[in-house]
């Protein structure tokens, strides 16, 4: 019913919308999400014909190109064939007319009706959205935010349009009202085509079947809503979901580095992208279809960095790892959880080439690993016991600088600068006094940070962390993990976290893989694995953690707070 082809909108400067293609059928709801300034509202206004700027391309609605129509004809379609529900800002409704009168006007603009009949219809509409009697005849300033939003919805429905464009229909509403309005909208858009413009991902998830992610005026990813939310493919989509606080997510909030810039050459997202390559600066990627998903990325979406395929490791008759399959993507945390002795550490060591891999394959960025020095530039490891992993014969400078020596990077002065910078990054002092200290002069948390600094000094893409905080107390553990997540946000560091602490995994990982007797028995998004574990062992693990909860946690639902 609505088809947008190669739409560009510009207000004179760099285009606000460029090359947008979208299709929307009757009975379908499509969400357009993105940060403010991404061009979402401009897109909606462009379809309505309400943008001041210049639109090129095609917007085909009901078989006709809207952009080729005369303004008067478009005006007659507005409010009749397509209507817009605006965000309930203070003056979205005219302050000098009652809600009822404004809906009567919307009806009379398009229909030859007696005033009384129009009034009757307006009252019916307002009743349908839940505004009755005196509330309907009230002036906008007498209505609450939720009531104003209802009035705006009723107004859009005045002439039963085939296409509804909803611009932030639930913004600035409290959670309960938001729920009510969302339910109301869901009922109303069943037989219509709906374009839901929002930065509120939970609203979008409840209302729509498909979702398009807009960044810098371009669609970077588009696909079925549920799939897109569960498995974002574009780095921007993932960043957006990570920044959004919704109940199903368990990982701590993470942002997207930098801020949106206009008129960027090449891929609009490349200045903030942690996996950009040279091509991203030069050429704009075109959306490509990939298993029902459109992704506009030169790298085909978030890259799988480390792929472990059917890896088995045996020590004589003991099969420590059996046909393990794991994929670690750029910038994500994968927690490998399981009992001690389940083969987690062996798996990690096999990846690092510290124990010989039996059968199977380990690939880094698509290539087979060869145990060369280059491999260790990209993959580094932090071990469980910092006291043992950092040589007591080396001072901080020597320990952190050692990988640089091994790789032959820089001269003495440059190495010193790199060491100082990485120490700053892990929030350790970088003065000469500290550089000369030996491990026994440092606390456990400090030594582990030195170990992390050593792993990060080469700026690797993958960090394998084997119980990195199990020897530390909780407050130090929290600081170190936050540090790792910050580095992940900034540089796109992929982390394979090996831990037996499922509560910890819940807070820091995007995905969780559960290992039992050398096999990976379950793998999935952290929220899903923890809330509805599928494997019996995972259930036991989760229950074991829940039963350990401190007694202040309510065991029954009716506990009263002190």
């Amino acid at each position, binding site marked *: 019913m609505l088809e947008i082809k190669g739409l560009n909108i510009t207000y004179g400067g760099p285009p606000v919308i460029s090359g947008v293609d979208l299709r929307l059928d009757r009975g379908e709801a499509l969400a357009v999400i993105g940060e403010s300034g991404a061009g979402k509202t401009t897109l909606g206004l462009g379809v309505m014909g*309400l943008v001041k700027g210049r639109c090129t391309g095609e917007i085909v609605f009901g078989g006709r190109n809207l952009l080729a129509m005369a303004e008067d004809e478009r*005006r007659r*379609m*507005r409010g009749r064939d397509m*209507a817009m529900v605006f965000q309930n*800002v203070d003056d*979205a*409704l005219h302050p*000098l007319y009652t809600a009822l009168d404004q809906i009567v*006007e919307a009806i009379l603009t398009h229909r030859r009706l007696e005033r009384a009949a129009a009034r009757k219809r307006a009252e019916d509409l307002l009743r349908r959205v839940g505004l009755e009697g005196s509330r309907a005849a009230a002036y906008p300033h007498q209505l609450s935010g939720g009531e104003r939003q209802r009035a705006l919805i009723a107004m859009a429905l005045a002439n039963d349009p085939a296409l509804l464009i909803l611009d932030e229909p639930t913004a600035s509403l409290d959670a309960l009202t938001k729920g009510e309005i969302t339910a109301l909208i869901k009922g109303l858009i069943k037989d219509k085509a709906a374009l839901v413009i929002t930065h509120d991902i939970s609203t979008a998830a409840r209302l729509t079947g498909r979702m398009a992610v807009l960044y810098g005026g371009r669609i970077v990813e588009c696909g079925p809503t549920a799939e897109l939310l569960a498995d974002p493919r574009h780095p921007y989509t993932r960043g957006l979901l990570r920044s959004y606080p919704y109940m199903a997510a368990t990982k701590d909030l993470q942002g997207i580095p930098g801020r949106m810039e206009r008129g960027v050459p090449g891929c609009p997202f490349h200045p903030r992208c942690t996996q950009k390559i040279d091509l991203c600066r030069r050429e704009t990627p075109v959306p490509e279809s990939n298993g029902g998903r459109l992704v506009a990325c030169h790298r085909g979406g978030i890259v799988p960095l480390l792929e472990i395929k059917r890896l088995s490791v045996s020590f004589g008759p003991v099969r420590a790892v059996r046909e393990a399959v794991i994929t670690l993507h750029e910038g994500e945390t994968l927690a490998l959880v399981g009992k001690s002795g389940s083969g987690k550490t062996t798996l990690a060591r096999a990846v690092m080439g510290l124990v010989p891999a039996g059968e199977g394959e380990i690939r880094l960025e698509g290539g087979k690993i060869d145990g060369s020095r280059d491999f260790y530039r990209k993959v580094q490891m932090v071990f469980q016991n910092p006291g043992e992993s950092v040589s007591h014969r080396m001072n901080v400078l020597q320990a952190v600088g050692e990988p640089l020596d091994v790789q032959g990077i820089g001269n003495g002065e440059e190495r010193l600068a790199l060491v100082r910078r990485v120490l700053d990054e892990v929030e350790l002092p970088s003065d000469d006094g500290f550089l000369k200290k030996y491990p026994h002069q440092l606390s456990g948390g400090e030594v582990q940070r030195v170990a992390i600094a050593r792993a990060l000094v080469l700026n690797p893409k993958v960090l394998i962390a084997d119980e990195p905080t199990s020897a530390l107390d909780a407050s130090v553990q929290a600081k170190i993990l936050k540090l790792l997540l910050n580095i992940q946000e900034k540089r796109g560091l992929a982390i394979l976290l090996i831990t037996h602490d499922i509560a910890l995994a819940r807070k820091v990982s995007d995905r969780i893989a559960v290992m039992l007797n050398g096999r990976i028995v379950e793998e999935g998004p952290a929220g899903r694995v923890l809330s509805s574990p599928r494997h019996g062992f995972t259930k036991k693990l989760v229950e074991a953690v829940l039963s350990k909860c401190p007694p202040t946690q309510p065991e029954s639902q009716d506990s009263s707070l002190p």
Partner: protein
Amino acid sequence: MDRTGLLLNYAAALAIILVLNFAIPRLMPGDPLQAIYGDEAMIAMTPEMKEDIIRRFSLDMPPDRQFRAYIASLLRGDLGHSYYFNAPVAEVITGRLPWTALLAGLALVLSMAAGAFLGIESGYRRGRPADGVLLAGMMSLSGLPDFFAGILLLILFGVGLGLVPLAGAVTPYSGLGGMALFLDILHHLALPLASLVIVRISAVYLLTRNTMVLTMGAAFIRTARAKGCPEAAVRYRHAGRSSLLPVVTAAGLQLPHLITGTLFVEIVFSYPGIGTLLYNALLTRDYPLMQGVLLLVTVVVLGVNLMVDLLYRKIDPRVTHAY
């Protein structure tokens, strides 16, 4: 503020005006009679007249009785006696009032209507040539003194082109009636009215245009467009009506300015209204007449402001239906 509060405010203002009007002549040094009537009148006055006046103003009574007598005489419509016209002040004023009411009233209505209309159209076309020309023209008119505009118009159309009469409100002794009289009045009215309107229109225009420009950026304008409202409806029903709110307020504030303007313009065109009357009273030191005129003017300003306040409540529901 609710309606009663508003009315009480105005009542208080009126009371203060009355007290001042009563007190000032009596507080002046010397004989209040002398202060009210002036030296010359005192010399020309016969003892009987003096006696009569003292009785009428209760000048031989204590102040509270005097004030009561003053209010009572006001209620009777007695503003005193004009020595110069040798007639009651109220009568003299009533004779001239219709001309001023006609001139000032029309000037107010016309300047408001034309200013608002041009402001709405101009603000709607912000940045386009029509807006630019109008804005430049109005800016150059704003700040022009009334009497100066009057003199310019008089020289150009009256003296130069001879299109309109130079003075007066009607052609004297013409014996005109009906339609002819009406046209004659309009003919005389044209120039003084034009000079008042020209000067005032720019203020209304600038204010309307300004609010119109702001209003056009409001979200409800976009809502109106999304409904499919025709541009005329957007311009007047939605943007225009909102833009008029400050104009109504400004009308009340402008009124004193309009009245002084009218006084000057009447003098320029020898228009037989309150303005020339006051001017003559000043020249002849006819104090009772001056006081009468000033009292009338202040009461009118107060009354019109009250009307504006009440009107504002009617057109802005946010004031009436505060909750």
